[in-house]
Structures are given as structure tokens and as C-alpha cells.
């Protein structure tokens, strides 16, 4: 028998939700198995069970033919199961070496063998081409480097089976290519890999076999060579999916709605400062800011929405310098769809209707003499819920009871129903299911067609190319020139995201 890993009849329930329903899978030695599925399909739950973070309600796991004790991460590590989580489990203020050696030695031991650990780590990084400075603090590393540390961490523990949870979601196209080269080498050395993703192109590129989960059930299993994109998409979603359509270029008018002139800004939350950002957005067009998150996009959005102050430069709204505070921005009719819908976009414990009027609660429509007109607010909320297809049990419930997609639809409705002239949408579809994504895309397109200027900030290049008239790239706080979407290629946009010089990316584009 050649199976490195066998999962047999795994079932896991969280209350009424069946996260994994009788799932059986096997992984051969030297194989890359792709685990596909939408958000909430049960991929992460399944892997957390394998890694001992959750205990399955029924079913068993065998690693190299031996049964694995459920619910014990140590047992999984000891058997050679290594996991690279989507959200890295690294301590930022510790060094690479500290992070790698954490937990590998007995806690009762009186000294750590740092010299030996350093040597082992360097040998590993040599062998697999994962260059890293062992003494660098993790917080100084780029996202790609942090991922390297996670992989090295698993290898340092002697992992034979590597589980990668959405490993490409935070990488530039070039970093993805590098990661794939590393994975191929790992497989050549006899490791087995489970590659969790919802991106079809990547899965088809890297895997030998593909398994698709939908609503906790295994709905497809087969060789990659026999699979097509359309059929995988169908299996994932459970119905035919139209590929994302490119939007026809809109006829942007000559009215400049937003103009940034050499804007510099810093903030406590953002590690990257905004440097000399200049941008013009015309009425009726969608301008996308592409880039790996954490390169200053959030700060840019915050500046436009009046949340962060500029240190120099000027922001003009319809030709007039804008007073940069939130109240002013709301009064100007700037719609803000923040990146973090749970914490910034809504207040989790307030009811749905309170959230629906929150930014404009002082408006005469919803309050008088400082007293909230709950009836008007509820009526308005009901209109929004209806118009924007928000699915909920009651508008009296706290908003945290809603799914991410429905919270986002409510925020979208709250902002777009005010007929804004400028919409700032930061990662508007992050983590949402296909249906919600399509809805939000169509709403943004309609808003642009009505004449609104849309500033779209997104990490998802498919989304960027599907929606944007013009695209600018953000890297290390610098904003590139905004060019027509057709002027960019995957290659040139990837280089720009990695911070390569403009001249080079132009040559590539030509």
C-alpha cells in the first residue's frame, strides 16, 4: 500500500451545521492532492481535524497505515503531518529561528541547542531553495517570506505530509510561481502535499489529483488530467457558473470626481506609509487599485474616506479641497465599503436596523432633536433588505448573526442607496461565496453606469480585470500610474505588485 494518508468517513458537526459529511479521501506518496471548495465548504474543518485541532464526530484517520489519535496536534506532528495555515501562526516579534524551533524541544530542557538548530535550518533552506535569514524578526519579513518560514517550520519537524491552506491567496503571481517550484521539489523528494484552494487555474497547474467539497460533502474526486475548469466550477458551486464577464468599458465623463495630488500619509495601524500618491477618478468609471494587502491600500482608502489624515499633498473632491474628516466625507456623499466588514463596516452587537442607519443616524430622516426615529430607521432598513436581497430572520437581531455575504449586502445597500458620487470599496468580495460576489459586482457596475466614480481596492486580480476601466498598482506605499485595463498583462501587473520598477513593467507590457 502506497497511501501516505487516508481519511475514512469523517463527519463533523457544529451544532446544526454539518461541516464534514462522511468524507473519505486518500493521498499517495509523492502526490499533490488539491482540495477544492468554496468558502464554508468544509475544507479547513477537514484539515483542522487531520491536524488535531478538532475532534471528528465519527470516522478515522490513518497516516502511513497507522491510526492517528484524534484531537492531538502533537500526535499529528510526530507522524509527519505539517500544516501551513492560511493565517500564519507565527509570532511577529520573535526571530525566524525562534519561530521554527518553538515546541521542538522538551520544555523541561535547561538549554536550547541554538547552534545546532541554526545549522539544521540553514541546511533545510539550502536543500529546498527557501532562502531566509534565521535571525530576522518575523515582522520584518514579506508575506512570501513568512510563508517560507511556515514551510520550513513544518520541514524542520520532519513533515512528510504537508498541508497548505489557501497558500496563494496573499502572494503575487511571481511569488506563486516560486511557491509552485518549491512544491514540485518537495514532491520530488518524496513528500506528499494537500493543496487547499478555491482558485481553479492554480489547482489545475499544480495538482495530480483533485477532490471537491461542497457543503461538507465530497462531490468530485478524479485525476487532474481528466478535469476541466468548467466541470470543477460546476462541482464546487453545484450549478453552472458563467465565467466572470469582463465589463464593457464605460463612457467616463470628463468630470473629475476625486483627485489625489502627491498625497503622503502615515498611520499607526499601517506599517507602510503612503508616498506621493496621485490619482484622478472620473465620474462613471471604475478604477481598481491592485496589490498584495498590506502595501498601503487600506491607508489610501482611509485617506479618501476621511479616516486618516494626509501629511502632505491634497485631496480634491469635485475640484474642491476636501476637509479630511469622516463627517465631511459622509456629508459629501462618499460611500465607504471598508475592508473589515465585521469590525469597521458594522458594529457586531447592534441590531441590523441600527447598523443600517448608523453613518447617517444624525440625518433628519432618522432623528430629530437627537432622538432616534426608530420607525423611520426600521422602514428604511426593510427597504434596503428587500432591494439588496439581504437574507435574515429579523432586522432586530444583532448583525453578527448574519453571514459575511449578507452583512456585506447590507453595507452595500446602506451606502449605494444614498446615490453616492464616489464609492470607495475595499476588498468588497473578500471571503464571499460566488452568488454574493456576482451580486456585489453587478451593483458596483450599475453604480458606475449611473455616473458614480468607483475606487475599487482588491487583491483578487480576476476581480480587478473583470471590473476596472483603469488599474493602478500599489506596492510598498507607492501608487503606480493608472493605466487602461487592456494595457496590463498578468505578467506586468505581477511585477508591479512586487515593486519592480515602472520601466521594466512597461517593457513587459509592450
Amino acid at each position, binding site marked *: 500500500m502506497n497511501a501516505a494518508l487516508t481519511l475514512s468517513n469523517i463527519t463533523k458537526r457544529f451544532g446544526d451545521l454539518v461541516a464534514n459529511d462522511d468524507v473519505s479521501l486518500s493521498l499517495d506518496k509523492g502526490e499533490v492532492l488539491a482540495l477544492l471548495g468554496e468558502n464554508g465548504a468544509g475544507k479547513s474543518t477537514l484539515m483542522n481535524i487531520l491536524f488535531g485541532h478538532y475532534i471528528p464526530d465519527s470516522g478515522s484517520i490513518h497516516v502511513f497505515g497507522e491510526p492517528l489519535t484524534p484531537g492531538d496536534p502533537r500526535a499529528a506532528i510526530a507522524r509527519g503531518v505539517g500544516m501551513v495555515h492560511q493565517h500564519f*501562526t507565527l509570532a511577529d516579534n520573535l526571530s525566524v529561528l525562534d519561530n521554527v524551533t518553538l515546541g521542538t524541544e522538551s520544555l523541561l530542557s535547561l538549554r536550547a541547542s541554538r547552534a545546532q538548530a541554526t545549522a539544521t535550518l540553514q541546511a533545510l533552506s539550502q536543500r529546498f531553495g527557501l532562502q531566509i535569514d534565521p535571525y530576522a524578526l518575523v515582522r520584518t519579513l514579506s508575506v512570501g517570506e513568512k510563508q517560507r518560514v511556515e514551510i520550513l517550520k513544518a520541514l524542520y519537524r520532519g513533515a512528510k505530509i504537508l498541508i497548505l491552506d489557501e497558500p496563494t491567496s496573499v502572494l503575487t503571481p511571481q511569488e506563486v510561481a516560486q511557491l509552485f517550484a518549491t512544491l514540485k521539489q518537495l514532491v520530488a523528494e518524496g513528500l506528499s502535499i494537500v493543496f487547499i484552494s478555491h482558485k481553479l487555474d492554480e489547482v489545475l497547474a499544480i495538482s495530480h489529483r483533485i477532490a471537491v467539497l461542497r457543503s461538507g460533502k465530497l462531490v468530485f474526486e478524479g485525476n487532474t488530467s481528466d478535469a476541466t475548469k468548467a466541470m470543477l466550477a460546476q462541482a464546487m458551486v453545484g450549478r453552472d457558473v458563467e465565467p466572470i464577464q469582463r465589463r464593457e468599458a464605460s463612457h467616463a465623463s470628463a468630470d473629475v470626481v476625486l483627485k489625489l495630488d502627491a498625497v503622503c500619509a502615515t498611520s499607526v495601524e499601517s506599517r507602510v506609509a503612503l508616498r506621493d500618491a496621485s490619482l484622478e477618478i472620473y465620474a462613471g468609471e471604475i478604477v481598481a487599485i491592485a496589490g498584495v494587502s498590506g502595501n498601503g491600500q487600506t491607508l489610501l482608502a482611509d485617506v479618501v474616506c476621511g479616516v486618516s489624515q494626509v501629511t502632505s499633498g491634497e485631496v480634491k473632491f469635485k475640484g474642491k479641497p476636501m476637509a479630511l474628516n469622516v463627517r465631511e466625507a459622509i456629508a459629501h456623499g462618499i460611500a465607504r465599503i471598508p475592508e473589515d466588514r465585521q469590525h469597521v463596516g458594522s458594529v457586531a452587537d447592534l441590531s441590523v436596523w441600527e447598523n443600517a442607519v448608523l453613518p447617517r443616524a444624525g440625518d433628519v430622516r432618522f432623528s430629530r432633536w437627537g432622538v432616534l426615529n426608530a420607525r423611520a430607521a426600521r422602514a428604511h432598513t426593510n427597504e434596503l433588505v428587500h432591494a439588496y436581497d439581504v437574507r435574515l430572520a429579523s432586522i432586530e437581531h444583532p448583525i453578527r448573526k448574519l453571514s459575511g455575504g449578507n452583512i456585506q449586502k447590507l453595507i452595500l445597500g446602506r451606502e449605494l442607496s444614498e446615490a453616492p458620487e464616489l464609492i470607495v470599496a475595499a476588498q468588497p468580495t473578500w471571503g464571499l461565496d460566488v452568488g454574493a460576489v456576482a451580486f456585489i459586482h453587478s451593483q458596483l457596475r450599475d453604480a458606475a453606469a449611473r455616473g458614480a466614480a468607483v475606487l475599487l481596492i482588491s487583491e483578487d486580480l480576476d476581480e480587478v480585470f473583470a471590473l476596472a476601466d483603469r488599474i493602478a498598482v500599489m506596492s510598498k506605499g507607492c501608487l503606480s500610474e493608472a493605466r487602461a485595463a487592456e494595457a496590463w498583462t498578468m505578467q506586468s501587473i505581477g511585477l508591479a505588485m512586487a515593486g519592480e520598477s515602472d520601466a521594466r513593467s512597461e517593457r513587459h507590457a509592450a
Partner: protein
Amino acid sequence: MNEFLSLLIDHEFWVAVLRIATPLIFGTLGVLLCERAGVLNLGIEGIMVAGAFIGWLTVYSGAGLWFGVLAAALAGAVFGALHALLVVRLPLSQHVAGLGITLFATSISYFAYRVIFPKVDSPPKIQAFDDMSWLPIPILSEQTPLTLVAMSLVPALWYLLYRTPLGLALRAVGESPQAVEAQGINVVRLRTGAVIAGSALMGVAGSFLTLAAFNSFFFNMVNGRGWICVALIVFASWRPGKALIGALLFAFFDAAQLRLQQSSGGVLPYQLYLMLPYVLSIVALVLVARKAAYPQALMQPYVKGTR
């Protein structure tokens, strides 16, 4: 000004600095252990009272001085275990639980004192620690052995934190409990252990007051020293060496104000002098702590299976 300069060469002054610093060193190292593991322990003020009382009571009942220190450490550990139960296992608000522990530990110590000694006019005395006159080092020879213990704890704790696997796990759990859990180390146990050990040190800090600095127990004797330790740890950026420096610095100001009070002949109200070390600590904090790198997971409760 001259008076101030003459202080610097005054032998007695430096003896006082070291004596004032000792409980602060114990306390700050205790806070360091708790906070490095990601747990705020505002119980320190009360735990010091309990340590002072239990340590003194043990010796008063006839046990040896070192046994008194041990009893104080145990008392600290018990309150630490209670705090850990509340904030690590349950996990409740660290602020509220910590302040609750302070009120509880303080009141129960005072209450027990009153029950055991219902009718005393002057506080009963014990034979406190003697100075280490056998030691050939000048100023240190006029300190009690507890000061030596406090000073040697600094490198010991540094070694633990930076040179052992346990110390690494401890630093990591205050930065990212998820990272620790992912390596199969039990976060709850690790944090509980750190809080218990740190609280034991706080207990010892209290016992210094009754077993070395004074020879009896009286109300309000801790007098905010615990809170000073909570501020000192920010000043020290959670490092043992800097914690020592911080404690010495505060003690320096405190000893200086005591002298100035005596020598100024009552020109200014004495409260102004009392204020001095606190004002200076606030200034020092403002200068240093703005850049302080807090343990990232400080005050973040960890519940398995959540992010």
C-alpha cells in the same frame, strides 16, 4: 543643587536606593512573567499585601525567616492560580479579575490580621533578616539576603526567557497563542504556570516589606508599590535587565525625595516631594514607552479553535 550632588557620593543614600528597589525588582519580574505570557495581572497590589502578611505571620508563629518567604511565595501562587482560573481558563476580563484579586487579597489579609490580633496597640514585631555584613561588597553588605536573591533573579530569568525552550514558548504565547497551540503546546497550561510563578514572585516582593525592610505588618504598607511595578514593566519593555534598571531608577528618585524632604527644612509641603518619583516615572514612561513593543497577545484571551 549641591545637596543633590552630595547625595551621589553619600554611602547611606545608595544603601537606601537598593533597599527601596528590592521589592520593586521582585514585583516587576513577577509582572514580567505574567505579561510575557500575555496575561495582565493587576492583582499584584493585593498579592503583595497577602505576601507581606502571610510571610510575617509565618515567622511570627515561630517558623524561620526563609520559611516565611516560602509561605509568602505560596500565598502569591494561590492568588495567581485563582487569577489564572478566572482569566486564562474561563476567560474573563483581565482588568476586572485583577482588580478583584487586589481588593480580595488586601481585605482578607487585613481581616485575618484583625481576627488574629484583635487588641494590639502597636504592631507585634518579629526578628527580621539581618544585613549580609559578611559580604565584602560595600553597599550590598548592608542589605538583607533577599536583595541578593532579587538581583540574581534578573540573569536567571533572562536565561530562562532567552536560552531555554520553555522561555521561548513563554515569549511566543504572549505574542501568538495560535503559534504555540499549532506546535502542540498547551496554551492554557503554559499561561497558568506563568501567572502562578509570576504571582509567587509578587508574594515574595510583599514579604520583603515585613521580613526585611520592617519587622512588623501594618495596614497600607504596600502603598502602591504594586502599581509602580505594572508601570515599570512598560518602561522596561518586558526585559529583565531593563526591569532592574527601572526599579533602581525609581528607587533612586524615591530615596532622593526622602532626603530632600529632610534637608529642605519644611519650605515646601512634603507632599510635593512624595509626588516627585511618581511624576518622574510618568515622564520616563512618556519618553520610553511610546516605542514600547507590547507583547502582541497581551490581554487577549485564547479560546481553542478560534482566531
